[in-house]
């Protein structure tokens, strides 16, 4: 953070607050200005500017890196909602480039090929906020300890299969409840066991919730998927390949936005789900080679 004349930028409150403003909303992956406008028009709270959506990254293979700045800039010019972009795990120069461009949020993402197999980015050192993926409470708290201002489930990106996102969200929620119910003298042993910073674990014990917003990501493909994740305790939803790999992106985008707002209104979700055409095709997780599982990237 920096402070000039009593005005402080890049504080935790400002970085985490930005994510608070996204709650109850849908963040959509887009690869150009046209898709960004469709997303904004459908009611997205932010867009993630990418060179390829995760399912195409999966299909293309090779090394996936930060998007070409031209694409990110094109998207930033096209919409007035916040624009996020992805940097490789540990690639703090990609992150600095995105920050310099004025991107509103950086996703240090396992969807891209990791640049560092040992260290994640020191996100506390940045003015721009970060979102990071996690599969369980320990991983979420390690990322928050490094300065992440928002957490999302890793799920299994680009599969259109919700099972891994459900697993990760259930795991986090269940662990939060356990930590809340522990006696204080059990906390240090738990911190050691799950590899979490003690102070953050203590905070969860006292408040019963993560200190940052927690979204669902990695496999959301239908309005019902979005509503399911909201019911499991997500604060909002990322949709990667699910929208622009479906038959009718506009309709899909609008339907997912509404299902996220009214996640307990089954009559409405039924209406929204009518005649949407085919969602993205999807991949059965057990058919993925272990090396193709993006969620194993990072720690």
């Amino acid at each position, binding site marked *: 953070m920096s402070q000039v004349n009593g005005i*402080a930028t890049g504080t935790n409150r400002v970085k985490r607050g930005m994510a608070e403003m996204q709650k109850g909303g849908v963040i959509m992956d887009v690869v150009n200005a046209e898709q960004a406008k469709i997303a904004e028009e459908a009611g997205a709270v932010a867009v993630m500017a990418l060179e390829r959506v995760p399912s195409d990254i999966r299909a293309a293979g090779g090394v996936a890196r930060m998007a070409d700045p031209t694409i990110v800039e094109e998207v930033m010019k096209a919409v007035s909602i*916040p624009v996020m972009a992805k940097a490789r795990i540990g690639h703090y120069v990609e992150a600095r480039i995105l920050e310099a461009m004025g*991107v509103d949020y950086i996703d240090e993402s396992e969807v891209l090929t990791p640049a560092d197999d040992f260290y994640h980015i020191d996100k506390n050192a940045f003015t721009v906020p970060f979102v990071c993926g996690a599969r369980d409470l320990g991983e979420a708290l390690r990322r928050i300890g490094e300065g992440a201002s928002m957490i999302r489930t890793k799920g299994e990106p680009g599969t259109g299969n919700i099972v891994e996102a459900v697993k990760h969200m259930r795991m986090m929620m269940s662990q939060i409840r356990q930590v809340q119910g522990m006696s204080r003298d059990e906390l240090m042993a738990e911190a050691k066991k799950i590899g979490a910073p003690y102070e953050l674990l203590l905070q969860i014990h006292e408040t019963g919730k993560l200190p940052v917003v927690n979204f669902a990501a990695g496999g959301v493909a239908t309005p019902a998927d979005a509503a399911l994740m909201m019911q499991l305790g997500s604060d909002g939803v990322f949709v990667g390949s699910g929208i622009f790999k479906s038959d009718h992106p506009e309709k899909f985008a609008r339907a997912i936005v509404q299902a996220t707002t009214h996640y307990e209104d089954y009559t409405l979700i039924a209406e929204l789900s009518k005649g949407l055409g085919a969602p993205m095709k999807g991949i059965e997780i057990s058919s993925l080679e272990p090396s193709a599982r993006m969620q194993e990237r990072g720690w």
Partner: protein
Amino acid sequence: MKIGVLALQGAVQEHVRMLEKAGAEVFLVKRKEQLEGLDGLVIPGGESTTIAKLMHLYDLMEPIQEMGRRGVPLFGTCAGLIVLAARIEGTDTPHLGLLDITVQRNAFGRQRESFEAKLAIKGVAEDFEAVFIRAPLITEVGNASDVLCEIDGRIVVVKQGHLLGASFHPELTEDARLHSYFVEMVKAAQRKRSA
């Protein structure tokens, strides 16, 4: 005293917590039926384009405008301020259009320019911690509006009768003084109605 928080998207729970701290009974509003019997309504921070689209979709614009015209106090923060404003720079289509001001969206820049600062708010506090996130600025106010707070000569809080708007997020701190101020506005409107 029943105060609603528009719960379509954004920092809803934070407002609920602050209003409860200020002594109000709080209700979430996602449908127009839920507006019935409310003595006041808060439009939270979030993404103004998303909130406004959902308000149109669920026919909430008209009934909330009607509440405003009836004298029911409304309080908008950040996106909520944009939703309340009569004029939005760069577009001819305001949302509720109740508050006689012009707003400029994302007036301070992008997220990296978001900031916090201690500000004096007239009649509320001398040292209010204000969190600005991709915040709008009030570039013009009508004759009936009181400017309650400025930063470097730029207007960030206005009150126009029973309408209150702030370009920052009082819901992101532990300081409930601005919410208490709104609760007092709601009480005053109740007294006026029963008189």
